[in-house]
């Protein structure tokens, strides 16, 4: 488990920077669009910028082991500030820029940050607001000068001024800087990242140089990344993925990191850059697909037909061609024509023409969405990771890509499934500790270095791919002892655009049932096209045609679940369509739109009882909270429907 450094010199990110400046000196390392033009910096220039900044930090009195908060959108200078802080032996702590002041106060106080480097006035204001509570902050450094003229600058500096000061103090601090940089080892802390803290307070994950460099090395080799690759850095800097992609892998392989002009120009900048290595959460791929489909609906008839014809070809043979499987010459010729007429221009519009490797992770991606991109010839893959693992736990190798698995263990990662189904892993990327939280560290990471993910999953027999089914704490047992994984079923159902939200019940019972929320915009649109009149959400949700459609979706899902030997018990036997949308105001969901199972179970106990007692309809009254805080009651009679279930594939074979 303890790996030794490959070469003595490359034990830290600043050391990698020095190597890149020597090896790739004239290659572009960073680009940022500003004032309408892509400004670029070579590795050599970056190394000079970081050096000046590090000297400036020394002149401000930054000490070894200081925590340096970095708050702002992805900008080259903020990345340099992280590396400069590492150079002087300090620890960068990137924070989410959209966090409100109170959330920031907790993190700043917890790590005892002495320096705060802010992107702009907005972030400075937040830091100043919490400065009363967080006594540790001594210096604020900002990047964007706008609106900063009138602030009290006695303990505040413009980043460029810090750099000039560093350049001026060159003689004075050069020796000290060299000494501090040389003192960095594989075990010194590289970065500290706070987990988002959906449960309880955020925890500071301490990652060492070993974690970051070993992971970056292994994953770069896995996907054969090269120094000519281009990425777009647009995901929050506080997120471990961005640190691995835009710092770890970028410094290890020496590829170019491009920063967009602003959050709203991301799509245009993506097109202009045409990255070769790309990461996006499923939501972004989904939005892109929706906008393509909507625009195709508005296109002329000839174009629409061309698009439909060739997309059908792509769906049929695209993924196989991408995976290098045998495909007939005729199909290949058709696909090539499609590439010329449809796929090529489409990929160009999306900015994905040059993508060699694309990843999605974070949550389940709809199979249709996933297949759409793969059929266009974009090598979109899935990975499974955590902050505590320095991202990579499993990932999909080229040629073995499917939407329902998360791939095989990444190189250097061992994965083990515990008896209760929980996934454990051990690797060189495993975090050092939770900062100032020995208790949590101990409960997450055992003495041998195995880390609990909190997710339940299993290895698919035959392929050796890991499949994640649910959060471990939500997984239960059915009455007959088979596995109950509600989220697995819910996600499958939620891939239908007509279904907004699903809650599946069945823990400890003999069969599964479900509450379903329709998506008003999708179903409303469908109703309009099919001449179905309705006057309210409740009426639409209870319309027999709608119920029929939803029943169709449930039965299709059941058929797909039945394919799966382990989870075939989770097929939905009965369901109802709820008369109101589950809402955070009524406490049924969290503010981040996650279902609160316990509360729903209590609130709708009468409905659940009806689902299990076999009645065909149920009358209910539900209290709702309006947006102005008033309360009211909704009365409804709901129809309960039985859905066809399919005997499991395995049981069928056994008969």
């Amino acid at each position, binding site marked *: 488990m303890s790996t030794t450094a490959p070469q003595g010199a490359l034990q830290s990110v600043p050391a990698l920077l020095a190597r890149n400046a020597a090896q790739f000196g004239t290659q572009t390392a960073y680009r940022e669009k500003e*004032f*309408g033009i892509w400004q670029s910096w070579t590795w050599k220039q970056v190394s000079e910028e970081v050096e000046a900044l590090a000297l400036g930090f020394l002149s401000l009195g930054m000490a070894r082991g200081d925590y340096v908060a970095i708050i702002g959108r992805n900008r080259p200078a903020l990345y340099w500030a992280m590396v400069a802080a590492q150079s002087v032996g300090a620890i960068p702590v990137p924070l989410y820029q959209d966090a409100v002041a109170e959330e920031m106060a907790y993190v700043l106080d917890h790590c005892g940050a002495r320096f705060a480097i802010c992107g702009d006035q907005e972030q400075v204001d937040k830091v100043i607001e919490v400065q009363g509570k967080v006594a540790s902050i001594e210096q604020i450094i900002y990047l964007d000068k*706008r*609106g900063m*003229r009138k602030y009290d600058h006695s303990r505040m500096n413009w980043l460029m001024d810090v750099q000039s000061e560093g350049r001026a103090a060159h003689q004075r601090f050069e020796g000290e800087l060299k000494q501090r940089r040389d003192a960095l080892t594989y075990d010194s802390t590289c970065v500290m990242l706070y987990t988002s803290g959906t449960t309880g307070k955020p925890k500071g994950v301490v990652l060492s140089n070993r974690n970051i460099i070993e992971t970056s090395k292994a994953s770069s080799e896995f996907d054969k990344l090269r120094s000519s690759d281009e990425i777009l850095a647009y995901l929050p800097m506080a997120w471990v993925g961005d640190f691995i992609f835009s710092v770890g892998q970028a410094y290890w392989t020496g590829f170019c990191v491009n920063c967009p002009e*602003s959050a*709203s*120009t991301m799509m245009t900048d993506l097109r202009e850059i045409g990255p070769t290595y790309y990461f996006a959460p499923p939501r972004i791929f989904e939005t892109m697909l929706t906008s393509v489909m909507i625009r195709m609906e508005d296109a002329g008839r000839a174009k629409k037909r061309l698009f439909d014809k060739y997309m059908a070809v792509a769906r049929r043979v695209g993924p196989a061609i991408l995976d290098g499987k045998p495909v007939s010459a005729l199909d290949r010729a058709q696909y090539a024509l499609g590439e010329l007429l449809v796929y090529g221009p489409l990929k160009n519009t999306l900015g994905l023409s040059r993508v060699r490797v694309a990843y999605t992770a974070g949550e389940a991606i709809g199979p249709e969405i996933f297949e759409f991109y793969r059929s266009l010839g974009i090598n979109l893959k899935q990975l499974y990771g955590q902050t505590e693992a320095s991202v990579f736990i499993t990932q999909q190798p080229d040629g073995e890509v499917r939407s329902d698995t998360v791939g095989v263990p990444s190189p250097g990662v061992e994965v083990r499934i515990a008896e209760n189904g929980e996934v454990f892993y051990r690797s060189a990327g495993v975090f050092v500790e939770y900062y100032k939280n020995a208790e949590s560290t101990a409960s997450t990471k055992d003495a041998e270095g195995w880390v609990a993910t909190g997710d339940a999953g299993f290895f698919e027999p035959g392929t050796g791919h890991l499949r994640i089914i649910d959060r471990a704490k939500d997984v239960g047992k059915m009455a007959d002892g088979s596995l109950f994984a509600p989220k697995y079923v819910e996600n499958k159902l939620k891939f239908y655009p007509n279904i907004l939200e699903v809650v599946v019940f069945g823990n400890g019972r003999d069969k599964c049932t479900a509450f379903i929320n329709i998506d008003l915009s999708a179903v409303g649109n469908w109703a309009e096209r099919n001449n179905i009149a309705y006057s309210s959400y409740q009426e639409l949700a209870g319309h027999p045609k709608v119920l029929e459609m939803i029943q169709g979706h449930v039965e299709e899902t059941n058929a797909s679940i039945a394919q799966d030997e382990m989870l075939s018990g989770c097929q939905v036997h009965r369901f109802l369509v709820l008369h109101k949308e589950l809402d955070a105001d009524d406490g049924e969901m969290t503010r981040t739109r996650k279902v609160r199972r316990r509360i729903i179970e209590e609130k709708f106990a009468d409905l659940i009882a009806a689902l299990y007692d076999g009645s065909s309809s149920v009358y209910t009254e539900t209290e709702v909270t309006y947006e102005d805080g008033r309360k009211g009651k909704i009365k409804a009679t709901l129809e309960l429907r039985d859905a066809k279930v399919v005997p499991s594939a395995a049981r069928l074979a056994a008969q």
Partner: protein
Amino acid sequence: MLDTKDDGYTTADGRTIGSVAMEMKNITLRFGGVVAIKDISFDIRWGEIRAIIGPNGAGKSSMLNVISGFYHPQEGEVWYKGFKRPRMRPYQVARQGIARTFQNIALFEGMSVLDNIMTGRLNHMKSGFLQQALWWGPAAKEEAEHREKVEKVIDFLEIQHIRKTPVARLPYGLKKRVELARALAAEPQILLLDEPMAGMNVEEKEDMCRFILDVNDEFGTTTVLIEHDMGVVMDLSDRVVVMDYGKKIGDGTPDEVRNNQEVINAYLGVAHD
């Protein structure tokens, strides 16, 4: 009334307002028999945000048009930077450092946002028509310089994402912002805004307010604005002129104006016995 010493005053939020930039002296403007503005005098000081308010038809826009040189009053004088201003064409006024936006958006709909804002630089361009048409030598260099200025404005107003979009495709609120950008591109000393927030939703209004304050704060631009939304006016401006039926019925800080009986009568109406 405010202490109107020649060397200016300090606002409630601590900004220092300078000496008189422009002074209207007994302006009367008639259209045939209709008297749009009746004997109005007030001043605008360097660095302040000066609002002109009043009910519909009070003569606010006419007043702004007098300042911008579009209308020429029959009586009275406009003093600018210490000199009496002779009768001028609007473009001559613009060259003196006064830029404006319009109540009904006056952009080139078919042109991109960038090109529209570039037109704001017109008065600063030195190369001639032929040079620009050939786009040769100094003309190309000059355009790059102007483009840089324009890009700074685009950055300032946060409209990078619509730089290349034709104006016709933009929503109303953004068009207003583009108009402001064009006026700012002219690097004015005095900025005239004719109802910058008319027809906007709350969010667009908030954005616009922030930009007006930021412009004043960052560049020290003197701003004169006409606005209907009283909340906005009272929050933004340092001093307010209130007009009604072409007459000035109030002048002072927002608080003074708010408590002025004549103003209250004009806005709320009075019972006629």
